[in-house]
């Protein structure tokens, strides 16, 4: 760590962390290199692929485009926080059941982006889902099954609230 390091306090997946960050480090680096939360992926490091999407203060952001020092005091949710391992989140189950992944590299980012959508709109149209996820690139699937998985997860979540 250099002389410019800053201490950052952050709550990630309901756990508090304190970590020294360089001003040039991104939130993605803080997660991956600093805390070894490697579920968030680097695909481009310039905001064009969506593989690093996380939820920051309730809103989906691309963690490669947020500086680590900016998140001091913030609450963050990453793919690792979605499930306790005993029961999958409805999005995780739906991605599995709908065969919405092949290589799985873009999957965490897609799930986090979709979670943000469903938290505001539990029953989005297919067109709405396609536009919402337009910032998340998947090179394996052609998206069809991803769209269906998100729709299905939305229905599952809505049903559980009834």
């Amino acid at each position: 760590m250099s002389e410019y390091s800053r201490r950052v306090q952050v709550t990630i997946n309901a756990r508090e962390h304190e970590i020294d960050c360089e001003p040039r480090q991104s939130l993605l680096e803080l997660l991956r290199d600093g805390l070894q939360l490697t579920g968030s992926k680097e695909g481009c490091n310039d905001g064009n692929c969506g593989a690093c999407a996380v939820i920051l203060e309730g809103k989906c952001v691309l963690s490669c485009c947020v500086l680590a020092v900016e998140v001091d005091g913030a609450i963050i949710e990453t793919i690792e926080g979605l499930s306790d391992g005993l029961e999958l989140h409805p999005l995780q189950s739906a991605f599995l059941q709908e065969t919405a992944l092949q290589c799985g590299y873009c999957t965490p980012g897609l799930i986090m982006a979709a979670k943000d959508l469903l938290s505001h709109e539990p029953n989005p149209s297919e067109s709405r889902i396609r536009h919402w996820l337009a910032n998340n690139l998947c090179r394996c699937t052609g998206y069809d099954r991803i769209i269906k998985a998100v729709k299905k997860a939305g229905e599952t979540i809505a049903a559980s609230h009834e």
Partner: protein
Amino acid sequence: MSEPNNRRPYRVLGTTPLREDGVEKVMGQARFADDVFLPRMLHAAVVRSPHAHAKIRKISTHKATAMPGVFAVLTGSDFPTLEPTILSHSDASTTDDLKDISENCMARDRVLYDGHVVAAVAALSRHVAQQAAEAIDVEYEILAPILDIEEALNEETPALHEDFTPGQFVLQTKKASANASGFEMNIGEDQDAFSTAEVVVEKRYRTRCVHQGYIEPHAVTVQWGSDGIMTVWTCTQGHFAIREQLSIVLQHPLSKIKVIPTEVGGGFGGKDLIYVEPAAALLAKKTGCPVKMVMSRAETLRGTGPSPGAVINVRLASDKKGTLLAADLELLYEAGAYPGGPVGSAGLAATSRYKISNQTIRGVEVLLNKPKMKQYRAPGGVPVNFAVESTIDILASKVGIDPLDFRLKNAMAEGDRMVTGLPCPKIGGRELLEAVRDHSHYRTPLSGPRQGRGMAYALWFGAGKTSSVSMTVHGDGSVLLNVGTPDLSGTRLTLSMQAAEVLGIDVAEVSARVLDTDSIAFSYKTVASRTTHSTGIAVYQAANNALREMARRAAVYWDIEESSVAITRGSFSDLGNPSRCLSFLELAKLLEKLGGPITVYGNASPGSNGCQLAAHLVDVEVEVDTGKINLLRYTAFQDAGNAIHPDYVSGQMQGGAAQGVGWALNEAYFYSEDGKLLNTSLLDYRMPTAVDLPDIETVILETPNPNHPFGVRGVGEVPIMPPAGAIANALYNAAGIRMTELPMSPGTVLEKIKENID
């Protein structure tokens, strides 16, 4: 998705269970190459040439070396000097000259493309390594770059290499001129086929260099122990391939290299060749620390192996009833900086779905100052399929026959002579085209103006090659299946399903792993649509070996002859006393008393994986003000042989179609006049997003492959081939314009629309 008829008596095959490795992937726990962290690990960065062609006069590393946190610097002089080295064994990991591959990994006296690596540095962090890389001064003498195919073929253009080993991917090429090598295939005796034919069409096409576009950039971590054992963690389609290439390039024994394959974030033909691996290894050796090197997206686009741009001339002749009589094709493909691009496989697949008795196919690959071109899903197949399928539609229209009927009339069938001279194996080509004709998509009228429907048809060969597996039946009845072919998209499951089918057990009882190069016998790469097919044959063997061994144990238990044990769907019975019967689980539980768990092996080297066939049907609408093509409806038809996991087959069809659509409409490398790659981000290298694609409906047909115990054919590659031709044909039917270049981006389409109006 329309599911194939389940007319065969399979219990597991044809169902759609969930993949075991999927849970880790949706939870963010799967370990990809960049997720490897080791104690004392350093991070490496490389210096890349900003010039397309230059001599390296001098590299000054002292500023970088003196920076705090920098551990080692590496240049071309640290690499062993190789003589030209071509691997001749049938499972060679590359058909390229390893001397070229070594120089592609690290330039020696010259850089040959924008992004060519000239030096590397290992430091405490990625940032420090990048800063140090920027502090390395390289003095270049800039040379004129060769940037297009015609220029490279011009006799006055100087040779890029004093001498070169001609490329031999799939077909051996011979040196043809200073910067080119080629092949020619001929069948048919009729020299006058063109001059006497009633209808002849000739057309020239041009396509651009594109990238596989896997979302995970290349990444590697290497540890070089003081015992000389090198351990490599990397995301690759072939860890045995990486081991072989590293062994030769670094002159290090195979037995002292262990390659551990991580999960792979997409490969599509781009991840089976070494790039930064040797530099990471040499830095690990120099520093005594593990070294990790991860490419940025720009490095992935500039410095790996994209798929070549091409110029293709197609001449086809038919009689007035629409029977194809002759084909004459010239395929000029970019090789990039070193030979070995996919022109040979393009030549084989060019016309091979049609019966044409007189054919000449000339393939030429051209050296120029771009990255060394590589395979990308049906290597070389997309440009030539676009060219031929467009020409077929033109020809059908001239003859006055419906394009689908024209294709049906000329479809190759079993026993017809292919361009190789060999008879065509059993394929379901006619059935596939008939399925298109009978589908509601084909029969539904278009709904508005400026809409058009088009189709294209494709055949691809794939490859067989060697696969090895081991299988253990444990005392609790669970089965461990170890394989040596990396899993890019769910093959651990499709292989487990084949094991479960043979063993007569539930697929959930089978757990599959991809093992490292030390832990499983040699396996060829996951390429050429081969894993579910070829590794599947090895699994079939291993599972049958396991059943035989279990029967032997049952014979011991019952104290009878082995031949008296009958095996029926995972249960074992005494032929002499049918009341004595053991289920798979019951016998497994007895194994500990009967000699312990059973471990068996399977090894297969099939010659091919059967032909893959696809036909795509697309409806487009063109925006005449902007030139943008919108896809309204898309249906992909494919013969899967036997769809082991129909959802996965359908997923391959959709993914391939999506990549083909990107190639057709948007994707291309843009170079400046001096040869710098201009679009090095995923904003500017524009791959399809969720809003660019319609639902891709899939129709799976099954004509079993007679050379696989379950009839499996390769599946993964062929669906990338038809989209460009299908869209071009649909566009013609929508707007009367014939595009002869890819991509059919709005700008180029608009230009063509304006030309048409003028």
